[in-house]
């Protein structure tokens, strides 16, 4: 099998087995209760999922309890490419099983990858083993009530004080705000936006959970309210003024690829349900899969998913090989896949008819979850602007 092996290949891999056996059975419960249950977190930890995407040198040894191998042939591609594709397969598998759980691993990797890239040796030694083992969960806190994609405008203030900083402000819509143990948080210093490592138990930090989200209810979203939260000097990540341009961007690039893979998985799950439904639902003396207008939807769904999957693979390979267009590819993959999953879940729901909007299929959950994807990690409109600027920069005037 090569890097661009068919996405329709159904050879078992360890992430797919983990996701289907240990995550998918809880998907409806997660949606209902808006929390990821401890047994799911334990299964992910034991399988090494919290270490996925991190440089192996930084991770503690982990024992995989599920399955025997991946679907990427490591003898044909460089190690870093195989690792990147294996990481993508994790997010694809989790996206199919529970978009909420994919989001938990996504923000863990977003914050963790920013720390792994821009942390000091001491910070990496202190935090990364606990993050990669899953003993601690990470998230990234950028958004504020008045600040979205323009991270450079953050209003949370960091005030230099003796031996550290005092942070005051409010972070909004933080995925895993009510779950993570450590936040990579962007606050403003006189030098500009700056990243800090904020432990959940820091005095002065209040977590305000957000209930009744439209979809991805297991994101355990919360606002973070900071009232003179004191952080020692060694909790500054990177350098003052580099929080938005370097630290946050590193996390966002990770998040965009992860989320794109998650969208492919979610779309595949919805599509497979719709395929089975089309084959078994009888109308006018035959299966509705024999009707050309249903076939049109199935053809669109299948092609859309395949195209998004290829973009994800290309983006993961580009990042692993440090290609110059890696950022553009990650952005395009998220841009395309997050819209694709909306189209696919809508058609899948349509194929189910009344049952697609009722309580007995996962279609409504898929549809609600899919609506989240175009909003987080950069809205479709913000990504369009970024892609255009990156593409324009490649063409001489």
């Amino acid at each position, binding site marked *: 099998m090569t890097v661009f092996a068919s996405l329709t290949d159904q050879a078992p891999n360890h992430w797919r087995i983990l996701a289907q056996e240990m995550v998918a059975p809880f998907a409806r419960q997660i949606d209902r209760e808006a929390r990821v249950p401890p047994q799911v977190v334990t299964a992910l930890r034991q399988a090494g999922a919290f270490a996925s995407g991190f440089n192996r040198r930084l991770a503690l040894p982990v024992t995989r309890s599920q399955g025997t191998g991946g679907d990427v042939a490591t003898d044909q591609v460089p190690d870093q490419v195989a690792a990147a594709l294996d990481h993508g397969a994790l997010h694809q598998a989790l996206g199919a099983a529970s978009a909420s759980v994919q989001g938990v691993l996504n923000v863990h990797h977003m914050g963790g990858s920013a720390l792994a890239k*821009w942390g*000091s040796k001491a910070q990496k030694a202190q935090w990364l083993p606990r993050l990669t083992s899953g003993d601690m969960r990470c998230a990234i806190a950028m958004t504020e009530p008045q600040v979205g994609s323009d991270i450079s405008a953050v209003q949370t203030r960091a005030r230099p004080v003796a031996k550290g900083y005092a942070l005051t402000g409010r972070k909004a819509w933080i995925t895993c705000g009510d779950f993570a143990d450590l936040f990579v948080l962007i606050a403003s210093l006189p030098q500009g936006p700056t990243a800090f490592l904020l432990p959940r138990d820091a005095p002065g930090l209040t977590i305000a959970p957000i209930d009744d989200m439209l979809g991805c209810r297991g994101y355990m979203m919360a606002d973070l309210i900071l009232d003179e939260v004191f952080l020692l000097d060694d909790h500054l990540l990177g*350098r003052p003024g580099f929080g*938005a341009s*370097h630290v946050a*961007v590193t996390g966002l690039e990770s998040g965009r690829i992860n989320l794109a893979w998650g969208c492919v998985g979610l779309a595949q799950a919805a599509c497979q349900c719709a395929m089975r439904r089309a084959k078994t639902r009888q109308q006018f003396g035959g299966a509705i899969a024999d009707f050309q207008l249903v076939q049109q939807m199935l053809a669109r769904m299948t092609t859309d998913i395949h195209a998004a999957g290829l973009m994800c693979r290309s983006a993961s390979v580009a990042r692993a090989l*440090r290609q110059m267009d890696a950022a553009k590819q990650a952005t395009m993959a998220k841009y395309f896949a997050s819209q694709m999953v909306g189209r696919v879940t809508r058609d899948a729901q349509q194929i189910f008819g009344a049952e697609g909007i009722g309580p007995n299929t996962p279609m409504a959950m898929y549809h609600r979850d899919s609506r989240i994807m175009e909003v987080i990690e950069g809205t479709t409109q913000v990504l369009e602007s970024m892609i255009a600027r990156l593409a324009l*920069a490649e063409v001489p005037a």
Partner: protein
Amino acid sequence: MSESISAIAAFMTRSFDGAEIAPDQDIFEAGYGNSMFSMQLVAFVESHFGIEVDADDLDIDNFRSINRVASLVARKQSLVSA
């Protein structure tokens, strides 16, 4: 060093719509540097020169001009080969 300077100059010229950048010209003062370019520059020096830019290198002076970036690359390469 001169090969590094040529490669960095070519990258900046490509990034700045064909503008010729003098080796000591301050690209931020000239209005060329923005947040998107900052990470592209990191990606370029890492991929082109096989070095790892880390937190210790996050000093705006390291990225201010072609010559400054070339000096950073030379320092990092000497650490790798040492």
